[in-house]
């Protein structure tokens, strides 16, 4: 085996073609270390100053039988020298580590795309498990692609044979060999991964060595041996991105940090009561590791107890947070009504997933907008925000805290499985640089009652237990507007219902003017989006505009109340298309609130919109 030192590859050996952007999809068995391979490639790519977006695509099963199609795990990364906003529509390169991974992922590959497979594992048995009757590497069915069968398993065993590992341990290094090969293909520096391996396996240096040997062998395989001349190699120049300090961040991380930052600015302890559910649990995990930031986490016995504990925490003077996904939020509904009635700040994070019921727990959908905006008994308004991308979760979390404490209201934050788990580079902000007013608890007993309101925000006075002289009772029964005591008076109920609605409506008064993401404020067509469709819409609109098409992209963060200038803005367009991953939920709200005859562009396959789908939809509408 040739020994290769991990030095910067100068790329001078053969001419590398510069690429503007590339989509690579790693796929293999759940046990093949696909997510780890993907995240290492992501780190290295970020260090090469490419912009990027990733999408981990897990199977729902924890450990499906090896080699089966439903046990395939994938990780897609789109990186480039231009701004990257989505994980990419169709991969340019598919790394399929077994027949099942090939079978599941081939359909998305670009024509003439590159397939790299582990030929060693294309055995009769594995082919059968994947549902192949013939070996696709031999029967010509892959003829429209460029296929590189590599004996990954054999090469891995060879690379680590002198290191005293068991066969099983040795084969676990396969993913690093693959990674080395891809590093060669895209001219990536191996050193960050080597550093990471040495740190990760500091207690088992032989494992670190083996993985590094596999990584280097994969690189060497591409560079010095079989592949030279048969495959084009590429270089992806640095992207032109805003200067500053960057890191990769997942939505769950950005959300957790944003909540901590917001609570700190508000001067409140953060309390998160949650119950495990895919894909929302990550937030609980991250916050549980932040106890030293005055964060209390509580894994409750169920979804109801989770939200109730958070309401109890807010009642006692903390910022209560609960997190879940649609089915869990459904269980929290009654308690949300209580939080609206007693007018306490509360943040409810819904990492949406495909439904109804259990639906597709690991797939992405935006179908809980109705639930968030309308899904409670009675007239029970609260604020709803949506994050558009992993890094946007930070800003949205801070904004949620601002609204919750300024208006004394629950705020639902909508993310989804894609946003929570995907990562993207993030220009790290100053956590102290956001405008959240410090909370001032009521301490003055003079003419106090718990439903005294701020004239501007309509927020009620927040007096917490422990404050002398302000002892009071609140509850789910209607309160008297003027005393805060129980009231069954009909006129009072009208008045309280009205003021609860006004309080939420007036949140819109404090919002900055709505500005299109791209395009003019008037024109032929506006695409309106919310949440994680941001990347696809943004790229599609950018492509169309490059092509001279008059189209505008408007993306909403504030779902309820809607920005008060939305109607005027939309009326400046001949056509308005609301693109969302549901059957038209924002569409309904936009139409009813603005009376603009918007139309829907909808998709519920569990996969994000493709850029091309949005482009095509816009062109069709403009041509008809």
């Amino acid at each position, binding site marked *: 085996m040739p020994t290769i030192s991990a030095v910067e590859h100068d790329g001078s050996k053969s001419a590398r073609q510069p690429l503007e952007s590339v989509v690579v999809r790693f796929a293999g068995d759940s046990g093949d270390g696909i997510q780890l391979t993907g995240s290492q490639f992501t780190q290295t790519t970020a260090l090469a100053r490419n912009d990027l977006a990733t999408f981990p695509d897990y199977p729902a099963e924890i450990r499906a039988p090896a080699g089966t199609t439903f046990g395939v795990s994938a990780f897609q990364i789109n990186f480039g020298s231009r701004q990257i906003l989505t994980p990419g529509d169709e991969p340019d390169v598919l790394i399929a580590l077994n027949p099942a991974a090939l079978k599941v992922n081939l359909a998305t590959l670009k024509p003439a795309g590159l397939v790299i497979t582990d030929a060693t594992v294309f055995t009769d048995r594995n082919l059968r498990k994947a549902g192949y009757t013939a070996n696709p590497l031999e029967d010509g069915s892959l003829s429209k692609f460029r296929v590189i069968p590599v004996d990954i398993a054999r090469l891995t065993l060879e690379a680590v044979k002198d290191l005293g590992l068991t066969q099983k341990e040795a084969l676990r290094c396969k993913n690093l060999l693959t990674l080395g090969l891809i590093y060669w293909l895209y001219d990536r520096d191996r050193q960050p991964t080597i550093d990471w391996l040495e740190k990760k396996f500091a207690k088992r240096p032989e494992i670190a060595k083996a993985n590094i040997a596999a990584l280097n062998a994969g690189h060497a395989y591409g560079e010095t041996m079989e592949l030279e001349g048969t495959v084009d190699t590429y270089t992806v120049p640095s992207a032109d991105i805003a200067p500053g300090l960057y*890191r990769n961040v997942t939505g769950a991380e950005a959300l957790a940090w944003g909540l901590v930052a917001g609570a700190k600015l508000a001067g409140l*302890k953060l309390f998160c009561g949650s119950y495990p559910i895919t894909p929302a649990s990550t937030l609980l995990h991250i916050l549980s590791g932040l106890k030293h930031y005055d964060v*209390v986490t509580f894994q409750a016995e169920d979804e109801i107890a989770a939200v109730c504990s958070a309401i109890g925490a807010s009642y006692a*003077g903390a910022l209560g947070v609960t997190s879940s996904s649609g089915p869990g939020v459904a269980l929290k509904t009654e308690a949300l009504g209580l939080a609206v009635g007693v007018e306490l700040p509360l943040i409810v994070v819904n990492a949406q997933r495909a439904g109804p019921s259990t639906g597709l727990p690991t797939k992405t959908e935006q179908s809980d907008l109705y639930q968030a905006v309308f899904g409670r008994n009675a007239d029970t308004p609260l604020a709803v925000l949506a994050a558009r991308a992993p890094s946007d979760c930070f800003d949205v979390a801070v904004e949620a805290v601002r609204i919750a404490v300024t208006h004394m209201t629950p705020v639902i934050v909508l993310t989804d499985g894609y946003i929570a788990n995907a990562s993207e580079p993030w220009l790290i902000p100053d956590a102290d640089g956001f405008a959240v007013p410090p909370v001032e608890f009521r301490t003055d007993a003079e003419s106090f009652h718990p439903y005294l309101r701020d004239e501007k925000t309509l927020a009620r006075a927040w007096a917490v237990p422990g404050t002398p002289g302000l002892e009071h009772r609140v*509850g789910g029964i209607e309160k008297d507007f003027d005393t805060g005591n129980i009231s069954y008076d009909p006129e009072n109920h009208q008045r309280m219902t009205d003021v609860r609605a006004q309080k939420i409506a007036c949140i819109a008064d404090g919002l900055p003017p709505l500005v299109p993401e791209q395009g003019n404020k008037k024109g032929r067509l506006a695409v309106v989006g919310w949440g994680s469709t941001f990347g696809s819409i943004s790229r599609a609109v950018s492509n169309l505009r490059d092509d001279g098409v008059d189209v505008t992209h408007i993306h909403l963060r504030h779902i309820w109340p809607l920005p008060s200038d939305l109607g005027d803005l939309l009326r400046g367009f001949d056509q308005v298309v609301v693109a969302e991953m549901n059957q038209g939920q924002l569409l309904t709200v936009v139409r009813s609130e603005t009376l603009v005859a918007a139309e829907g562009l909808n998709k519920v396959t569990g996969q994000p919109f493709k850029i091309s789908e949005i482009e095509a939809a816009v062109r069709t509408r403009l041509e008809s």
Partner: protein
Amino acid sequence: MNVVTPGEKLTAKDFTSDQEVRWCPGCGDYAIVSAVQGTLAELGVSREKTVFVSGIGCAARFPYYMATYGFHTIHGRAPAIATGIKLTNPELDVWVVSGDGDALSIGGNHLFHLLRRNVDVQFLLFNNEIYGLTKGQYSPTSRVGTRSPSTPMGSLDNPVVAASFALGSGARFVARSVDTLRKPLSQVLKRAYEHRGASFVEIFQNCIVYNDAVFSSFTAKDLAADNQLHVEDGKPLLFGRESNRGLRMKPDAFELEIVTVGENGIVEADVLVHDEKNHLLASMLAALQPPAFPMALGVIYCDPAPGYETNVTAQIEEAKANSPAADLNALMRQGHTWTVKG
């Protein structure tokens, strides 16, 4: 609101809010709220640090009548809300007031977890064996055969023994009393207050409208002495008009039997002595049912352990001690970062 100067001794009246009490005339809840108000005054607690949390039901109106902090929440969920309050501010004295439907039917799961976690609250279960607020349906503590609007031919499901449920859930303090037994009730409330960790108190409460006299087998004046066993730590388990009846283990079976001191050669030393820390004995006492046995009242079990909020707080303090300079900006800049130059 009155501002009380520090050191001023509060009376029961100081714990009474200005709200009109809306329970039915003759309801056992009146006696309980009065006992609680009196006991809090005797304990000398501060109003501002006291929080009453309730769910839904007749009993759940309780917080409105207390001049402390109060939170009337939703059906069955008071334990979860109380847990959030206590984890946020462990300094508060939190009382949960609940009924048999609220605590053992819709909220059974939350009560179970509150007790097993040992959250430092006083949980008062007003057991009247009926749904009062919804007008008289049978409850999870109703005896088999209870006729109610939803069970016109009599209820079929077996009732739960609340104290046994609490012991089985891992409660470290289980006590019982009766609404009208002011002194024993007050004593139990004081013990519950003093106990750190979850204190479970079942109070037999008469619903005069829908289930009147359901506890008369051990509360009626002529039957009380012979059918109430007031247990006290370290004292023999004696009861009866003449305090000469007692409990002992059967010599040939693992069960309790009633004996009479002075008959058949039985002396007081033969009678079991109550041991609050004995879980097995507590389980046997909790399960005793009149008329075959007396109803065990008082502190049946008390074996303290650190409260959940204490342990949660300790972990947070440990985390803070290990990372004294918790700086979010630094955290966000940890790990792989890179600088893009302008």
